[in-house]
Structures are given as structure tokens and as C-alpha cells.
């Protein structure tokens, strides 16, 4: 639990560093802080410890999710060099809020008491509301922030009502007490309260991970938020949300699988179908990525629906593969749109922005191609093994019809991922050679290498968890 304390302290330290005249120190300091927290999270590896009066539980699984979240945050932060050139940006505050939001994410990942789940969700969400609206003069950013805020706190209210009902029926917020209650312990209230409570809690968290039919905010918010924070949101929030769902469902509520299994299956199918078909009709790359992130929530939900020993591995691997590829894709989009605004053109986030990109910038083209292939689940990339492991869990559980839907939908997804690749290699465009800062380039290359290495040697990660 060292990272929670470290990141809180580092966040406050960053706010003070913001007083310094030169802003150049902020980026390396933030990266250093996240790297230290990353290292510190492995202190508890191999032990099962309860922390803070049994509020948080540290296991290998929670450490793995923490590591993925911190790695995504490290990569997103290292793509943020443009803050330092922008006059109106407040880099110290952005970095501090990002570190604080990571604290919330880690609490969501390793909670043992439902109070911690609520506090973690809120720390993460409130930080994201601020970051979404951080482009204060931009009306789209404003609108995205208000939509995210109103919808997010609405979902929090629903989640809280669920928690209250669960408390009313089981008499405790502790996960192990809930588990023994669900498995036939002493009842204080009627089982109806338990089912209603679990349903409302699920709605609240599914909203945060943007699963359909609770996804309607996602495209607007992802499009309106500054691209960098979109990348942060679509990776960190999603990973933390799924870790929380996994902890809840695979530990406390396995006893009533017949109840929530059906609900999750319905949500999974709706998510997969709605997101993939809507993504086909998008003209904006950022909106397509938003629907893509919804569809990946659908694939991750398959592993939860077929909950078992392998779901843990599958979820960890899939989150890692998805996060790395998403950050690489958003990284390329950031470079391209910054290049456009540098040339005085209006910022264009449609597919056309990538027209002819690969001719003058073969490296950027290659990075984007690998990211798209990984998101589509083509072999030799990490995304393929992610999908493979998720589908295996469903097959082991015998839910074959769900598998058929998922495979068909991932075939649909190839269409919109390949549109980007076609635009880059086959279309004509006036994109000139783009100068990319060396460090920025290294991070993108590292993401690409990680995607390919995991695609060839998936056991590197699978054997750990």
C-alpha cells in the first residue's frame, strides 16, 4: 500500500514545485514520482496483507492491476510535453491531479471494504471531471466536463443506494462478511434488498467503465476532453473499474452467480453490438476511439461473465494490451493534431487527418498500424492474445453463443480500425514530415515493442499472475 501514501505525498509536492519559475522540472519530476510508486508497489509481492484496519487488501492480482495503471499513467504523462509550451496550461496542477486520481484507482483495485470502493471511485471521478474541463476557454471541453460531471455523480448516487441496501441486508461493508452472507449466513433483511443492492451497485460501476446501455456519455466526453486526458481516462479508469468489478463479483457474490451472470451477459451483448456498429459510422477518429473503448469494455465483460480462475489472468493481460495500444494510438493523434495547429491549419480529428501520414513519417505510421492491429486483435500483437484468453474463459464456462457474438463483432471492428491504416498508407495527403521530440518517440516505440513482444511471448505476463 506504499504507492497510495507515496502518490498522495508526491501530488502535494508537485503542487509546490509549481511555484518554481521554470516549469521544465515538472515533467521529469512527475515521471520520477510515478516510477518510484511503480517500484514501491512490488514491495508486497507474494504476500497477502490487510492494510489500514482491514480496509485494503494487497494481493498479487491487485499489484498487477496497480502496475498496469501506473505504467499507463507513466506513458500518458510522458506524452504531455506540450503543456510546457502552452501558455494557458497549468502543468503542476494537471500532474498533481493525475497523481491523486491514481490514488483513487489503486484504492478501487485493492479495496476490502465497500467504503474504500466508494472513496476510490470518487477520488478518481472527481479528478477526471477537473481534467476533462481543463481546457477552460474551449466550449467543447466545458460541455464534456458538465456532461461527465452530471452523469458521473448521478451514477455515484445510484451506486451509493446499492451500497446502502447491501449494508441493510448483510449488516456489513466488509467483502468477506458479504461473502459469508451471500453463501448462506445470518440474514438481517430480505434477499430482495440484496438483489436490488447488487443490481444498483453494478449499474454504478458499469457506468464508470462505460458499458452499454450506460455508455451514452462516453463519446461526448472522450471527444470534448483534451486528447491527453482522453488517453488517461480510457486506460486508467477502465482498468481500475474492471479490477473493482472482478474483486466484487469473483470474491463476494459468487454465491448468486445465477442472478448477476444473466445481467452481465445481457450487458455484454448490448455493449458489443451497439459499440461496434456505431463505431463503423463515425467520421472522427477520437469518437471512433471512444466507441472502441466501449467495445473493449464489452470484451473485458466476457471474462467477468465467465468468472473463474482464468478470468483474472485474462483481465490483467487484456487491460495491459488494451492500455498500451490505446496510448500509442492517442500519442500519434496528439503529434498529428499538434503538427496541424503548428502549421496554422484548424485541428482536424477525423480520419482525414491521417491521410498520407505514413509516406513522410514511416515511424508514426508503423506505430499507429501496430496499435490498430492490436486493438483489432490480429495475431502477433498483444491484442490477439488478450482476446484469445478472454474467449477461452467463455469457452471453458460453456457460454458458446456469447463467444459467437464476440467473434462476429470483432470482425466488424476490423473495418473501422483498418480505415485508419488505409488512410495512412493509401490515401493522398499533404502531411509533411513531423518532428517528434526524442523522448516522446522513445515512449511510442516502447509501447509498440511491448505490444509486439507480448504478442509473441504472452507467457511473460500470464505466468506472473
Amino acid at each position: 500500500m506504499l504507492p497510495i501514501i507515496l502518490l498522495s505525498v508526491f501530488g502535494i509536492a508537485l503542487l509546490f514545485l509549481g511555484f518554481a519559475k521554470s516549469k521544465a522540472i515538472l515533467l521529469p519530476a512527475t515521471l520520477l514520482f510515478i516510477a518510484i510508486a511503480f517500484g514501491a508497489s512490488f514491495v508486497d509481492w507474494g504476500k497477502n496483507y490487510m492494510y489500514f484496519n482491514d480496509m485494503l487488501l494487497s494481493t498479487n492480482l491487485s499489484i498487477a492491476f496497480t502496475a498496469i495503471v501506473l505504467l499507463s499513467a507513466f506513458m500518458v504523462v510522458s506524452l504531455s510535453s506540450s503543456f510546457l509550451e502552452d501558455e494557458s496550461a497549468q502543468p503542476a496542477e494537471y500532474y498533481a491531479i493525475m497523481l491523486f486520481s491514481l490514488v483513487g484507482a489503486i484504492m478501487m483495485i485493492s479495496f476490502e471494504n465497500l467504503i474504500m470502493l466508494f472513496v476510490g471511485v470518487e477520488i478518481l471521478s472527481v479528478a477526471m471531471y477537473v481534467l476533462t474541463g481543463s481546457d477552460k476557454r474551449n466550449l467543447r471541453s466545458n460541455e464534456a466536463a458538465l456532461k461527465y460531471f452530471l452523469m458521473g455523480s448521478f451514477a455515484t448516487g445510484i451506486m451509493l443506494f446499492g451500497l446502502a441496501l447491501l449494508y441493510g441486508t448483510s449488516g456489513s461493508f466488509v467483502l468477506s462478511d458479504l461473502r459469508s452472507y451471500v453463501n448462506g449466513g445470518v440474514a438481517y433483511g430480505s434477499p430482495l434488498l440484496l438483489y436490488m443492492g447488487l443490481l444498483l451497485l453494478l449499474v454504478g460501476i458499469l457506468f464508470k467503465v462505460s458499458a452499454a446501455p450506460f455508455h451514452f456519455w462516453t463519446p461526448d466526453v472522450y471527444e470534448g476532453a483534451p486528447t491527453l486526458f482522453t488517453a488517461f481516462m480510457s486506460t486508467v479508469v477502465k482498468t481500475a473499474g474492471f479490477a473493482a468489478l472482478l474483486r466484487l463479483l469473483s470474491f463476494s457474490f459468487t454465491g448468486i452467480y445465477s442472478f448477476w451472470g444473466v445481467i452481465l451477459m445481457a450487458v455484454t451483448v448490448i455493449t458489443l453490438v451497439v459499440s461496434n456498429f456505431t463505431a463503423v459510422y463515425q467520421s472522427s477518429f477520437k469518437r471512433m476511439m471512444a466507441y472502441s473503448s466501449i467495445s473493449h469494455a464489452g470484451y473485458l465483460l466476457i471474462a467477468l461473465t465467465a468468472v473463474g480462475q482464468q478470468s483474472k489472468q485474462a483481465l490483467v493481460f487484456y487491460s495491459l494490451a488494451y492500455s498500451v495500444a490505446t496510448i500509442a494510438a492517442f500519442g500519434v493523434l496528439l503529434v498529428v493534431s499538434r503538427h496541424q495547429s503548428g502549421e496554422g491549419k484548424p485541428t482536424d480529428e477525423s480520419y482525414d487527418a491521417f491521410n498520407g501520414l505514413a509516406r513522410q513519417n514511416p515511424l508514426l505510421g508503423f506505430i499507429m498500424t501496430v496499435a490498430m492491429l492490436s486493438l483489432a486483435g490480429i495475431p502477433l500483437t498483444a491484442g490477439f492474445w488478450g482476446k484469445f484468453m478472454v474467449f477461452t474463459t467463455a469457452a471453458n464456462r460453456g457460454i458458446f453463443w456469447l463467444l459467437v457474438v464476440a467473434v462476429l463483432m470483432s470482425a466488424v471492428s476490423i473495418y473501422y480500425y483498418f480505415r485508419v491504416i488505409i488512410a495512412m498508407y493509401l490515401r493522398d495527403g499533404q502531411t509533411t514530415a513531423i518532428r517528434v521530440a526524442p523522448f516522446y518517440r522513445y515512449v511510442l516505440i516502447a509501447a509498440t515493442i511491448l505490444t509486439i513482444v507480448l504478442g509473441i511471448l504472452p507467457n511473460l505476463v500470464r505466468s506472473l499472475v
Partner: protein
Amino acid sequence: MQPTQQVLIPEVIQQIPLNYYLIFSTALFVIGIIGVLTRRNAIIIFMSIELMLNAVNMLLIAFSSYKSDPTGQVFVFFIMAVAAAEVAVGLAIIVMIYRNTRSIDIGALNKLKW
């Protein structure tokens, strides 16, 4: 946390059955939901969300005193603290939008669509 602790419940609280609290809180909560879904003014929506949170607080306190278990009331403190933080951020966002558009009607927010 044993059922035998039921005897510790003060008589004053027992005069109103737990079910009444449950129905009352649910009613408040549903009023909040209806407010969020039907009103157009960002501040009113915001107030409706606060109403939902307070319905939850009410419910938690009722459960907590009927079980003679303080955990529920501790959770209420957490909810109040977090709701205050949310209010700060939410009002800041609403003020930011008012400065740019001179309106807090959510119908005016239509830049982002399909």
C-alpha cells in the same frame, strides 16, 4: 454484529418501523432521479443529485441504528465529505460554462453529438 444486539435499540427509534424509513428513502431517491431526468437547469439537476445522496444517508442511518452498528453512520460522514468535494468541482464547472455561454441550461450544450 449479532442479532441479539437488537435489544440495544432505543425505544424511541423503534416507534417507527424500519420499513417506513426504507420507503421514505426510496421515495426521496426516486424524486431525485426524476429531477435529474426531467429538469433542464444545471443547478436544479445538481440539487436533485444531492437529494439522491441525502436519501442514501437517511437510509444508512436508519439501518445503522436498527442494527446498533456504527459503520453505517461512519459511511455517512464519508458520503458528506465526498459530496462536498463534488459540489466544489461541480459548481466550478457550472461557473466556467456560465462565463463562456451566459447560460446554465443544458439544452444549450449541443456541440458534441453523434
